Each structure stands twice: as structure tokens, then as C-alpha cells.
């Protein structure tokens, strides 16, 4: 193992004004032609990622965000023989800022038997898995200033994974950096600064590689940021475009901020979950998060575009093709950041974009024009609206003539305490869905919850950099549980649902006749893809807070998952799941394969 990032190197490279110098290094080192015998990751390979079933080349497995693998050695008939093949301890458990420990939320990548996985503080690990044994090839430690970034992240020490491009591993750090690491040696080629913790900006999502660009989303909706999606040219290191999710004065959408004190400047709209890409139309689909301040929606009268929206962006320019807003003038913290799942229905020819929103509804939109198709509640209790208008896709209470939307049970300045179902962690948070294209089932990892929300009226001018800007806060008043929903996307109806004792905090992997998911109490389970009957489970001994993947090496199929409970839950929501207080922090990568 070697550690190639030296403190003095990256500190010298920290300032964006020195990018030119950095990219001289890039040209000299990072972009040197790959060795003749080394496979590079091209845009064509990423577009055709499903043609490499043994690999997991991009964050959501394919550009359509299916998280579905066609590997079929492990089936419903033999999954009971699944055993631990190996484990590897990782790092990143250290605390920093307001956080007592880090956790693991990463989706590992797999290429030709090598795994690339990140820990919460942004270290990248390359692990060889040939011969059924794990071997750490290198670790890239970005030497994160943990107290700095950890002081301005609302929801844990999080890094959800890396990306592959050419002969480099591309990764984010929670402190706002984008780092390119040589895939063969682990040496850092270059570093760019994209987000600024001094503004409350952090990065937790994995990069999305599109052509020769890294697409980056930003976190910080609880700190009064102005959200954006940005594209970095990986050949030059220059920013190609940055599209703000909250318009500046005079720009389209700015009329939806009706105050006279520029609430839009701290209007939120973060983009902290990796999006998807339609190569046929060169369109990036990305979700945006809550407006700020979270709960005091009277501070920001209007619909607050383009928060809580689906954005369809031209990949080359970042220009908005269309948008669809799911929860206008949100008083509930219902980020619409979920991964957008791209689905072509073979019978009808429909090209859909489906997401499971934090507001408790799964939506289908026509993905070429953004036209609403249907919405289905997937949680047991929805209290904030009587439903979604089947024509407009808006909540039934929504009135475009009103500046403050009258959602049911919303907290307000005259009724300071409200109650909402789903609670503010939403019906589905960042843990990703998966989609089985043969069964046409979307699997949703559900949080079944209600919570109380208190408004603290926000005064204009009161925003302070690096301070929470939430206009109140949530409180847990009852137990929170979970479920898995299998949604038939051909009908928009729930095909099957299984109730679970704990919220789903780790995401789902789909294979031809199984799904896999971890649980925060430490259990990893395999379910029948149609009946959702649990067919196999294993106790990892710590909390599972990351999505499983599958890959193959030496002709054998493995299931891999990062184990170590982190994120927002342990700090802010634990009282609603008291048994989880016994879960200790951890940081281990597990791999499973069929035994004899």
C-alpha cells in the first residue's frame, strides 16, 4: 500500500487560481497515453456499460440508473448457499466538525476484478479481488481537513463513490474538491476545487462521467447555498459549464421568488445525488433539493424554482431543456434529489423517466418533454397532500395564484409546529432504487415515517455563512420503520410491498430474479424479485448504509457491499429507531459468493 498524496502537494494545489499550473501537471502526468496493455474507460464503454456484465463501471451501473446486473450465477434457487468470500477493513471512521465518526455510503465500482471504493472522507481504495482474496493495490488519501468540511455538512461524513474515465479514477471530496487519480499507481494527477465549504457547499455525490466531462452536484441545502450542477472538462480541467438551480434576478424562474429581500440568494436547491444520462438525446437528468430555509416557507413566497425539481440539461452546454417541479414552495424538506431512472417500455414505445421522490410519491414523466404521466404514493401514510392531480402532476392543494402553498399540516409562522408524513427524511432518501427491465419493476427503499416540524421565523439578512439556515427543525415523535416497494412501471401500480422493522438506508441491487439490500441493523438480505420473500440474510455486525453491487472475477459472481453506519441517521434520527443505538461505527467491505 502506498499513500501518494502529500500534504504539501495538495495544499499548494488548493487554490483554484492555480488551476493552470495544476493542469500543466495534468498534461505531463495524468493525460499521458495509457499503457498499451491497460484498458481505458471510454465514453463508448460507459454508454454500453450493460454489455460488460461482470463490471460495474459507473455509479448507477448504467447511464439509465438501473442498478441491475444480468449476472445470473447467483439465483433464487441457490442464494441460500451465499457465504462470505472475504472482507477488507477500510478507514475513514474518524470524526470531524460536528461528526463523531464517518460512515460508508459508497457504491463500489468494478472493472476486470478490481474494485474502487471510497470512504466518507474521500479516500479511494483500489482492491484487487483475483484468486478469491482481497489485496489493497493502493489508497489515495486526500488529507481532508475534517473539522472544516465536517462543520458544514448537515447529514454525515458522506462520499457515495468514484467514477472511471480513461486511465484515471475521478472522485469528489466532501470539502469540495474533484480529484483525478492514476488508476494504475494511485498517484494524484490533478485536483480542482469545485465547491467551497466557506459558503456551506460540500460534495457527497459520486461524479457522473459524460463523454470527457465530470458532472458534479453540490450539497448544502441546510446552509443557505445556491445550488448548481457543474461540468468539468477532464482533458483540460476547465469548467465547461455551471448551471445554477436557483435563477439570478431577471432570469427565467426568478419570478417564482416573490420576496423583496433576495431570498433566492440563499434559496438552496442542492444537487447531492448523482443523476442519469440519455445518450440518444444528449440529456442529463438531475434532481434538485429543498429550498432554504427548509421549514419557514413564508420567508420565500412563491414556487421557488427550480428547487425540488427534475432538470433535463443539455450535456454539452448545461442549458435547461425542461423542468418539472414536484413540491413547490416546500415547507417539509422534501428534496427531489432521487436518481432519475430512464426506462423505455418495449410494448408502448414510451420513454419514461421515473423517480421515487422524498415527498412519498413515485413519478413518471415523459423524458423528452417532461410531461407528467402518473404519480403513485409508495409510503403507507401521506399526510401533507390529499394526492397528486392526475392532469398536472401537482399536489391537489397547489394553487399557482398563491405565494404560500396551503399544504396539509405544514408548519407556519402562525402554527409553529406541524406534522408531516413522510417525515423530513422523506419516503425515500438518497439510497438508490433499482430497476429490473425484464419484470418492469422499480424497487424502492422506503422510509416509513412521520415527524414534527417546528418553524423559527427567519429574518432577512440573518443568514450566516457556515451556519445552519433551516428556519426551524424536525423532531421525532414516533417510531420510524421501513419497507421495500416493487412498483410496476407499466401501470404505475404497486405490485408488491414488504414491511421492514427499520428504515431503508442503503439502497437496492437488482439481478434477474433477486434483489439485495442492506439494513441499518447490520443485516444484508436477498429477496425474491417477484414475491419479495426474504430468501437469504447475513448479519454483518454493523449498520449497512450503502448499496450492494455485483461483479464477476475469475468467472465467479460476487456481491459486494460497504458496511459502516454513518450519514444523518445516527445523529439526528436515532431516537425513532432506538435499537440502532447499539450499532457501533465501522468500516468494512464485504464480498459474498456461492459456497459449496
Amino acid at each position, binding site marked *: 500500500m502506498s499513500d501518494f498524496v502529500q500534504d504539501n502537494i495538495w495544499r499548494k494545489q488548493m487554490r483554484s487560481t492555480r488551476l493552470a499550473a495544476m493542469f500543466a501537471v495534468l498534461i505531463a502526468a495524468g493525460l499521458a497515453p495509457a499503457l498499451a496493455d491497460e484498458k481505458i474507460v471510454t465514453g463508448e464503454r460507459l454508454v454500453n456499460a450493460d454489455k460488460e456484465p461482470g463490471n460495474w463501471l459507473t455509479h448507477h451501473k448504467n447511464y439509465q440508473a438501473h442498478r441491475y446486473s444480468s449476472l445470473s450465477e447467483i439465483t433464487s434457487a441457490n442464494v441460500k448457499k451465499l457465504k462470505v468470500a472475504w472482507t477488507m477493513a477500510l478507514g475513514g471512521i474518524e470524526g470531524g466538525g*460536528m461528526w463523531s465518526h464517518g460512515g460508508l455510503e459508497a457504491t463500489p465500482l468494478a472493472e476486470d476484478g478490481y474494485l474502487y471504493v471510497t470512504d466518507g472522507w474521500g479516500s479511494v481504495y483500489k482492491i484487487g479481488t483475483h484468486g478469491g482474496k482481497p489485496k489493497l493495490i493502493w489508497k489515495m488519501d486526500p488529507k481532508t481537513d475534517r*473539522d472544516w468540511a465536517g462543520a458544514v455538512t*448537515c447529514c454525515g461524513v458522506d462520499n457515495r463513490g468514484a467514477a472511471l474515465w480513461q486511465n484515471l479514477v475521478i472522485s469528489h471530496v466532501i470539502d469540495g474538491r474533484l480529484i483525478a487519480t492514476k488508476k494504475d499507481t494511485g498517484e494524484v494527477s490533478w485536483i480542482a476545487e469545485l465547491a467551497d465549504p*466557506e459558503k456551506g457547499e460540500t460534495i457527497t455525490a459520486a461524479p457522473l462521467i459524460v463523454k470527457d466531462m465530470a458532472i458534479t452536484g453540490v450539497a448544502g441545502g441546510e446552509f443557505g447555498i445556491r445550488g448548481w450542477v457543474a461540468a468539468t472538462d477532464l482533458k483540460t480541467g476547465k469548467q465547461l459549464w455551471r448551471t445554477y438551480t436557483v435563477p439570478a434576478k431577471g432570469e427565467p424562474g426568478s419570478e417564482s421568488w416573490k420576496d423583496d429581500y433576495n431570498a433566492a440568494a440563499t434559496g438552496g436547491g442542492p444537487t447531492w445525488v448523482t443523476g442519469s444520462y440519455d445518450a440518444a438525446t444528449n440529456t442529463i437528468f438531475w434532481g434538485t433539493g429543498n429550498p432554504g430555509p427548509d421549514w419557514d416557507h413564508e420567508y420565500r413566497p412563491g414556487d421557488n424554482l427550480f428547487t425540488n425539481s427534475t432538470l433535463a440539461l443539455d450535456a454539452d452546454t448545461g442549458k435547461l431543456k425542461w423542468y418539472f417541479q414536484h413540491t413547490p414552495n416546500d415547507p417539509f424538506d422534501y428534496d427531489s434529489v432521487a436518481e432519475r431512472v430512464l426506462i423505455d417500455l418495449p410494448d408502448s414505445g414510451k420513454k419514461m423517466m421515473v423517480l421515487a421522490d422524498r415527498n412519498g410519491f413515485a413519478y413518471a414523466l415523459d423524458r423528452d418533454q417532461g410531461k407528467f404521466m402518473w404519480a403513485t404514493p409508495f409510503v403507507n401514510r401521506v399526510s401533507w397532500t390529499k394526492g397528486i392531480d392526475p392532469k398536472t402532476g401537482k399536489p391537489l392543494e397547489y394553487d399557482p395564484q398563491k405565494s404560500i402553498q396551503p399544504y396539509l399540516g405544514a408548519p407556519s409562522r402562525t402554527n409553529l409546529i406541524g406534522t408531516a408524513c413522510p417525515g423530513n427524511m422523506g419516503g425515500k432518501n438518497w439510497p438508490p432504487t433499482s430497476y429490473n427491465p425484464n419484470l418492469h419493476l422499480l424497487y424502492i427503499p422506503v422510509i416509513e415515517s412521520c415527524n414534527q416540524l*417546528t418553524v423559527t421565523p427567519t429574518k432577512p439578512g440573518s443568514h*450566516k455563512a457556515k451556519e*445552519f439556515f433551516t428556519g426551524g427543525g424536525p423532531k421525532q415523535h414516533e417510531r420510524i420503520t421501513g419497507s421495500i416497494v416493487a412498483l410496476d412501471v407499466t401501470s404505475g401500480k404497486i405490485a408488491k410491498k414488504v414491511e421492514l422493522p427499520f428504515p431503508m438506508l442503503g439502497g437496492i441491487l437488482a439481478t434477474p430474479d433477486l434483489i439485495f439490500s442492506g439494513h441499518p441493523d447490520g443485516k444484508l438480505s436477498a429477496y425474491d424479485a417477484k414475491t419479495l420473500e426474504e430468501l437469504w440474510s447475513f448479519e454483518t455486525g454493523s449498520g449497512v448504509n450503502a448499496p450492494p453491487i455485483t461483479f464477476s472475477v475469475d468467472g465467479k459472481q460476487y456481491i459486494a457491499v460497504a458496511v459502516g453506519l454513518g450519514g444523518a441517521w445516527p445523529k439526528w434520527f436515532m*431516537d425513532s429507531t432506538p435499537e440502532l*443505538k447499539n450499532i457501533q461505527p465501522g468500516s468494512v467491505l464485504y464480498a459474498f459468493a456461492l459456497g459449496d
Partner: protein
Amino acid sequence: MNRVAFFAILLLAAQLPSAPVASATEQGAPSSRVLRQGKNIYKQSCAGCHKWHGDGGGGYGGAALSLRTTHLDQDQIMEVVRCGRPGTGMPQHTPKAYEEKCYGISIDDPDIEFPMKANTMLSPDEMAAVSAYVTNILQGKGTPSLTDCEDYWGPASHNCRDYRSGSSSDRTSNTPKEDH
């Protein structure tokens, strides 16, 4: 129990602390070891909501009150740490605080929304240490300063940049000030 009666009990309780541990005020000035211990506990158990500077404010932990402007004495603060604050997000840090004694409230009172239990419970010595940290380092200290920031984060911390550049002179305009 109506809210007026409830808060009257709280007020009375604040005047007549009932913590079972030795009175903090009887222990004299805290040692540097106690203050270091208190700071470590504060970082782990308190700073997420009350913030590093203790001035509180909004966030995922709820709207925490200011410890810089609190008028509670050290024993009263320790009781709040031990018992939490009913009806708010302030958790209790002793598992059976209300079975023992808190603000004169009965564990059987159906009208009380008892506080949640903290993720990490604290021993009497630990509660005394963190209460000593609050009263000696945070309470009554006015607007947070560069010195306060560097004492907390360390002398070279990025977190104190704003204080070095003088742009954090008025931090508290959005912070609740009342104590109970």
C-alpha cells in the same frame, strides 16, 4: 397538566435543582482536566445543535437555545443535561432520569411529552464536566470571537477564517434567547 402549570413546575425546578449528583457549585473552580473533558463531551454530545460557539440556532437537531446568554447556573444546566427539556429536542442523558427526579415531574404524568434519550448517556462526572465547560467557557461570553473560535477548533483552523477577516461580527440575530 396545562402548559402554564407545567412551566411553573419547570421554573420551580430550576430554582430547586434536584440532581442526585454532588452540587457542581460546591466543587470550586474546575480544573483544566475537567474543562478538557467537558469540551470533548460538548463536541460529541452538544455542538451539533448548540453549535461550536454555544449560541444555538436552527438545524436538523431542532432550534437549540443559546448557552452564551443562558441565565441558568451550573447545577441547573446539569439538571437540563440530565433530564433534557420536555416537549423539545433537548434529550435526557441519564437513562432513568424521570424515574428518579426531574423538575418535580412524575413519570406517570400523561400530559408530559418526555424528552428523547440521547444517543450517548453521560455519567454524573461527565455531566458535571460538560456543565462546567458551558458555564466557564460559553456562558456570558457575548458575541463569539476569534479567540473563542481558535480555542475550540485550534489556532490554524479554516473554520476561523471569517473571524480573522472580521466578517462575523453579528452572529446571533436569528437565535432564540429565552431559557425555558
